[in-house]
């Protein structure tokens, strides 16, 4: 017997990782870190495959995985430190928005931006520069960050602010984790007097009706989003818009507990789901039911935070519902004058039988200074598609060309299949971002499967 260790032997700290869409897996060494010092050590120890921070793995594609690399688990970097005098909070990069909301809502504060799930980390929210239903008035998550602590590729612990280090700050916002590891961040909060949202719900006749109502009325609301029936040729939908309800809008007996916040998880999807569950037939039925469930028009309804912002979080691990082939989400942003691409996309995908249960349309407001931030003024459509649909690759490539031609782009946190050429053309400031990234990470320590796939 000798002591040779096989290069093929599996190690205990190795994990096969995928994004939320459960496609294109790769294996990495997962290392838990609980301080900036730990992160520096991981960077110093990193092998030729580099390092990447991973949050809760909610990006759909390959942004939070890196084959052969050291993937950092920051879940113990989760302190939440509220400062009521500045109405801001300093949070560890590994803390989830779920935890932040649980800590802050009872104290009368809300996060400046929440995406469609609260199961994202603060580090991930900044790295993907996430947006929510208030983008048309309040911009992205990164726009509300006033300061962050970042360990760069040299292993230096740095403080980034939009005023003192604008280049590095904005390269890290939307930088997909490739400029450094976010240890903690300080961001502004929205003061609230109740945990309820006052919601106006309207069913729409067709896509044109949805879009013209959004153009006409969105400015009157802080939060606005439309769900679209992707199975119905008309593209009819349900518009939900609202704002935090002031406590005096609550019934008198509910005012004492106005800031109570108990988000629910009703069920967890089973581990093994047959691949055929998501098919055009079930999806048509789902879309029909979702449309019928909504009232024709109901204004001033008081809804819980979870029901309004995070309806999908009620079913844990719902991404398993797509079976073993997994799924992807196609999300683009186009300027107002290319609004017709929303309808084009819906019909192109319907034609190949790619019918989505979750199709979301939203108006974006102004962009921020981050070179790789996704939102730009106009429309954004997000549509889930099972990865196994035949003809999908060619259809999406064709849609990419239309989006690009219209001056639009795809969202890196959702992408799992665009071409490197599409990326470079749709993000003309990629070169500018790469120069700052090279400065922050001269040895190329930070990398991801997404970065390799798109030659970032």
């Amino acid at each position, binding site marked *: 017997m000798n002591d040779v260790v*096989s*290069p*093929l032997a*599996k190690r205990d700290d*190795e994990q*096969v990782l995928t994004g939320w*869409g459960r*496609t*294109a*897996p*790769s*294996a*990495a060494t997962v290392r838990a870190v609980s301080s900036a010092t730990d992160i520096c050590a991981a960077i110093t120890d990193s092998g030729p*495959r580099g390092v990447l921070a991973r949050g809760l793995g909610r990006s759909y*594609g*390959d942004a939070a995985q*890196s*084959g*052969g*690399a050291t993937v950092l688990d920051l879940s113990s970097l989760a302190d939440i430190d509220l400062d009521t005098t500045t109405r801001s909070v300093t949070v560890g990069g590994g803390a989830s928005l779920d935890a932040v909301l649980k800590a802050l809502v009872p104290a009368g504060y809300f996060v400046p931006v929440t995406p469609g799930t609260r199961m994202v980390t603060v580090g991930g929210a900044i790295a993907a520069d996430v947006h929510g239903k208030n983008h048309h008035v309040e911009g992205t998550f990164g726009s509300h960050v006033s300061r962050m602590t970042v360990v760069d590729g040299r292993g230096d612990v740095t403080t980034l602010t939009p005023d003192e280090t604008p280049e590095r700050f904005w390269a890290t916002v939307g930088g997909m984790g490739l400029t450094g590891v976010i240890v903690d961040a300080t961001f502004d909060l929205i003061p609230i007097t109740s945990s309820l949202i006052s919601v106006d719900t309207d069913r729409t006749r067709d896509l044109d009706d949805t879009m013209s109502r959004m153009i006409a009325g969105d400015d009157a609301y802080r939060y606005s989003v439309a769900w679209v029936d992707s199975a119905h040729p008309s593209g009819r939908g349900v518009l939900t818009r609202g704002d935090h309800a002031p406590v005096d809008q609550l019934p008198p007996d509910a005012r004492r507990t106005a800031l109570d916040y108990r988000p629910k998880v009703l069920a967890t999807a089973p581990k093994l789901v047959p691949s055929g569950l998501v098919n055009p037939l079930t999806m048509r039925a789902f879309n029909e039911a979702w449309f019928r469930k909504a009232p024709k028009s109901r204004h001033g309804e008081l809804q819980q935070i979870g029901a309004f912002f995070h309806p999908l979080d009620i079913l844990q691990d719902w991404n398993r519902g797509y079976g*073993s082939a*997994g799924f*992807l989400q196609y999300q683009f942003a186009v300027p107002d004058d290319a609004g017709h691409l929303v309808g084009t996309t819906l019909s192109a995908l319907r034609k190949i039988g790619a019918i989505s249960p979750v199709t979301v349309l939203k108006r974006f407001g102004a962009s921020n200074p981050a070179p790789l931030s996704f939102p730009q003024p106009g429309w954004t459509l997000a549509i889930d598609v099972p*990865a196994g649909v035949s003809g*999908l*690759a*060619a259809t*999406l*490539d064709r849609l990419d060309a239309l989006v690009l031609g219209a001056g639009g782009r795809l969202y890196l946190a959702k992408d*799992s*299949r665009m*071409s490197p050429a599409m990326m470079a053309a749709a993000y003309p400031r990629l070169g500018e971002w790469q120069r700052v990234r090279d400065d922050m990470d001269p040895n190329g320590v930070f990398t991801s*499967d997404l970065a*390799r*796939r798109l030659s970032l």
Partner: protein
Amino acid sequence: MMDALGEPQSVLVLGGGSEIALATVLALPRARLRRVVLAGRPSPALDAAVSTLTAAGISGVATEAFDAVDTASHAEVINRVFDGGDVDIVLLAFGVLGDQAEAEADPDAAVTVATINYTGAVSAGLRVATRLRAQGHGVLVVLSSVAGDRARRSNFVYGSTKAGLDAFAQGLGDALHGSGARVLVVRPGFVRTRMTEGLAEAPMTIGPDEVAKVIVTALRKGRETVYAPGPLRFVMAGLKSLPRPVFRRLPM
């Protein structure tokens, strides 16, 4: 990187002159393909393969000198290819049929068949597996053969090399389980290629294009073992269960 829809960006062919490998590269989705390395002995077939792929609009086609017999050189060639960037799909496609009568008359000829088909594949396969495992993703496609399912009197030297290769590839696939990398074992039947030219065709004979289609489908579905054509699986299951005295008398 392979994307969510199974579109590869880079492919390495070991045995770059192989007709099945060439057909497979041509059958792969190519919208994201930007690097194809054909590793093989310099030959007109290798040059022709480069021309065919380039003419088909595939960019980034390159060659590497690679000799299956020269196992001492394998590490350098394979490492150079992987150092040039992640490889999504490796086709281990080299192999020779040899001539059974010649092998029986001249054991050195039999050794050459064994060296190429088995020893060379063990050497290249392990080195590729180590690199795939280090990058945490990728598929090694091993061209085995139904001839390895059960040795036949008429070509048992070739059959035994494929039996060894097949067992090796299955074990390698199990070793890589959970590493992000995987192995696809392909067992074609009689395939119409230069290697089988002049031989009497067996039932269920197919062309390289049909094998390629089977491989591409298997890659998409994440399969571990496939027969080409697919129904051969049942034919071979039947043949494997025949008693020796019966099997021996079969006219094949």
